[in-house]
């Protein structure tokens, strides 16, 4: 029953979004038709909600007539993880995608479109509807979660044990999808601008907030993924450069580049082709990333399942690229402005440099991700490109970005004014020197981390200088709005960068064979085994070693053997601190009643600052969303970035 209901809902979605697209395209000429678009988009959205609800119901009632429930459902999965089990494999993830996308499409059709030039709004809605139609088809056909399963199945294995280990699985994928899928909205407006030829900056201003919201969700989602990795996977890291992580990072990189270069277009009317290209790149990279990670051409931990949607996604990627490049080529020369950036030492010059570095970063990540495939096709040989490659190339690029964050906020628009910039950079530069000195006192070493700390210090100084100046000029309101929000985001990102540099460079690790009651010392801490506990239920057997750190409370790294799937999962235990985390994992072989345990200890500096930085970034994004422009720019024909006195 659930199967038929779900399929029916998805079919309604396919038809409604197709009609929505048709109505929008027709509506670009005829304003009477365009009024139908929100209704169709709303119907499609309702259909997606219904399909998702049916799936949740099937999962909660354990309807094992569905193949998908057989795959990821189980009577023994706790309720919370059972709800999240819906998106624990490919088919459910696509369904979540459909849900988010159709909601965005509805909001665009119902809220954004009427506030815009009619043809632009109609075409943007049309693109949204076409993309959601594609994903409805995907979810209804090749990736349907409502297919009938083998008869007679009464229980299943449940989701991958890694996905029933931490509450973050509830939030990481939906956040990521809100960002990932949200990038469709600015893309739709970019295409609409190209199709209609309304190439002034109306589309850009209309989507500014949407890009920011999507970017915020994406950033938050990526950070939650890092947190999940740290808390669950037990190798003590937050980022492994695996293909799925890369797939989420790629649109983040091009999206971040866009947020910066869009300011150049608003302010100076330049970089129009480039901005459109960045949006197209961002959207097509989400499709490409999904293809790479879900079609099975690359293996990855995250690819918890594979399916035959590969050709569909590849075709979609091809269509998106061909259509967009064609449109840009067609309209391109009308987009040119013969304005000029007078010097690299202006704000727009720094944004240009920023875009260069972000684009190069995206190129490195894309190259590293697809290079094994290229080698396989060209050389018929298998290679893997991983962590050390991205680290080596990513570190100089990251340092370049930190340097830009340090300098750019002090540079004036339009004309290079060396004296002004020097004045503005004076105190931030001392911040950098102070950061270097502090790092040295705390024992830092190595050129790259030292550079990161120094540049981070200058960048913090730059951002704070801006915030203080803005607050002085405008009171507390000076701390919100676009550019102050941006500076708060900078503070968060610098926090994350410095924390990454510290934790990647100065982690100390040791394996300790602990005997009950006999303390062992490492890196200035003592570790005492208090006991080894075994608990067991129908789902799993779990062995926990109770280890007290420095004589304090006991932490309990564990190894859990999931009986049904025959998988062993280690669960770390972390003592979190402002200065450093102490991260414990229990290592096999586990001898239950021997009074001994082998644990691995990682002492990792500054990890907490990753999460603090994430929080600050989210706050900054929210602050940047607070509208201030209307008040400031009233009567000003040229839109000025808000918050600038």
């Amino acid at each position: 029953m659930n199967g038929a209901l779900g399929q029916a809902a998805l079919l309604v979605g396919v038809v409604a979004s197709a009609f929505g697209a048709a109505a929008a395209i027709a509506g670009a000429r005829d304003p009477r038709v365009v009024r139908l678009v929100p209704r169709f988009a709303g119907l499609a959205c309702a259909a997606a909600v219904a399909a998702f609800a049916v799936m949740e119901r099937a999962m909660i009632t354990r309807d094992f007539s569905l193949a998908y429930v057989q795959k990821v459902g189980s009577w023994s999965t706790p309720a919370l993880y059972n709800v999240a089990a819906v998106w624990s494999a490919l088919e459910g993830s696509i369904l979540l995608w459909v849900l988010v996308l159709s909601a965005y499409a509805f909001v665009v059709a119902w809220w954004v479109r009427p506030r815009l030039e009619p043809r632009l709004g109609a075409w943007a809605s049309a693109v949204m509807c076409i993309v959601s139609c594609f994903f409805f088809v995907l979810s209804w056909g090749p990736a349907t979660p409502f297919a009938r399963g083998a008869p007679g199945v009464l229980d299943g294995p449940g989701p991958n044990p890694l996905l029933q280990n931490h509450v973050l699985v509830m939030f990481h994928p939906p956040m990521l999808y809100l960002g990932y899928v949200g990038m469709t909205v600015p893309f739709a407006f970019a295409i609409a601008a190209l199709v209609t030829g309304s190439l002034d900056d109306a589309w850009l201003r209309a989507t500014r907030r949407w890009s920011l919201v999507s970017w915020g969700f994406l950033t938050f989602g990526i950070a939650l993924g890092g947190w999940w990795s740290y808390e669950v996977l037990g190798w003590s890291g937050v980022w492994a450069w695996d293909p799925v992580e890369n797939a989420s990072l790629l649109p983040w990189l091009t999206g971040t580049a866009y947020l910066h270069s869009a300011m150049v277009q608003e302010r100076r009317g330049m970089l129009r082709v480039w901005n459109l290209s960045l949006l197209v790149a961002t959207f097509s990279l989400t499709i490409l990333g999904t293809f790479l990670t879900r079609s099975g051409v690359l293996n990855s931990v995250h690819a918890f399942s594979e399916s035959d949607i590969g050709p569909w996604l590849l075709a979609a990627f091809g269509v998106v690229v061909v259509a967009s490049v064609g449109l840009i080529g067609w309209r391109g020369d009308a987009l040119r402005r013969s304005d000029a950036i007078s010097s690299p030492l202006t704000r727009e010059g720094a944004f240009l440099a920023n875009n260069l570095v972000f684009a190069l970063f995206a190129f490195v990540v894309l190259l590293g991700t697809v290079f094994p495939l290229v080698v396989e096709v060209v050389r018929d040989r298998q290679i893997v490109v991983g962590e050390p490659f991205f680290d080596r190339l990513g570190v100089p690029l990251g340092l370049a970005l930190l340097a830009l964050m340090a300098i750019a906020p002090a540079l004036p628009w339009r004309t290079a004014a060396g004296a002004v910039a020097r004045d503005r950079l004076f105190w931030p530069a001392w911040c950098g020197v102070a950061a270097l000195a502090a790092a040295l006192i705390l024992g830092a070493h190595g050129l790259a981390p030292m550079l990161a700390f120094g540049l981070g210090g200058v960048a913090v100084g730059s951002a704070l200088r801006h915030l203080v100046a803005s607050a002085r000029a405008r009171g507390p309101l000076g701390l919100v709005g676009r550019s102050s929000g941006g500076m708060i985001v900078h503070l968060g990102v610098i926090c994350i960068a410095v924390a990454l540099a510290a934790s990647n460079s100065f982690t100390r690790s040791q394996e300790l064979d602990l005997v009950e009651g006999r303390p062992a010392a490492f890196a200035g801490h003592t570790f005492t085994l208090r006991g080894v506990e075994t608990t067991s239920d129908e789902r799993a057997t779990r062995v926990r070693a109770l280890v007290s750190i420095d004589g304090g409370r006991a932490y309990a790294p564990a190894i859990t053997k999931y009986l049904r799937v025959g998988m062993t999962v280690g669960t770390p235990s972390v003592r979190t601190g402002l200065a450093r985390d102490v991260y414990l994992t229990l290592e096999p072989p586990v001898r239950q009643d021997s009074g001994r345990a082998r644990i691995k200890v990682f002492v990792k500096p500054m990890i907490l600052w990753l999460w603090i930085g994430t929080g600050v970034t989210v706050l900054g994004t929210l602050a940047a969303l607070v509208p201030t422009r209307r008040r400031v720019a009233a009567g000003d024909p040229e839109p000025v970035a808000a918050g600038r006195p």
Partner: protein
Amino acid sequence: MSVRRIALAAAVAAAGLLAVLALVDAPGEVTGESPLLGAPAPAVVGTTIDDASFSLERRKGSWVVLNFFNSTCVPCIAEHPALVAFAAREAGLTDGAELYTVVNDDSDDAVREFFARRGGDWPKVRDDDGAIAVAFGVARVPETWVIDPAGFVRLRVLGELAPGALEARLDALRAAGSS
């Protein structure tokens, strides 16, 4: 340079990427190659699940077949009858090969039960921390390796053995060795 020309260049680059992605197959069967083929076998040692010691070096003078195995792996179960037949045939030959099962990530009891149910009384060597598997570069079970009486690695078979295939390959190796 005009936007049109740049767009064309971008389209060409994207088409190249598209071609690569369309041409590449999902990772499939890996060939049974190894830098060890034709080289002296690594000197692995271990104990069998019956606590007898095992040293590969000491088995020089016999053809040795190592079968990397796990009692839950499906192709291992599938190929087991072929191994039983192979062992029976070799036992009847004067220069019959010695067959050893190398147990990968499995408990003694599970292995005993497997062999009690499905037959086969050749020695089963423990490989608790995977030292033997790493020495041969075995990532996935099953894998079957043949080592000649001089101690050189002669053959690597990845995945499930077809019935009779190992016998044929070994006879070919023997013929090549004696000629």
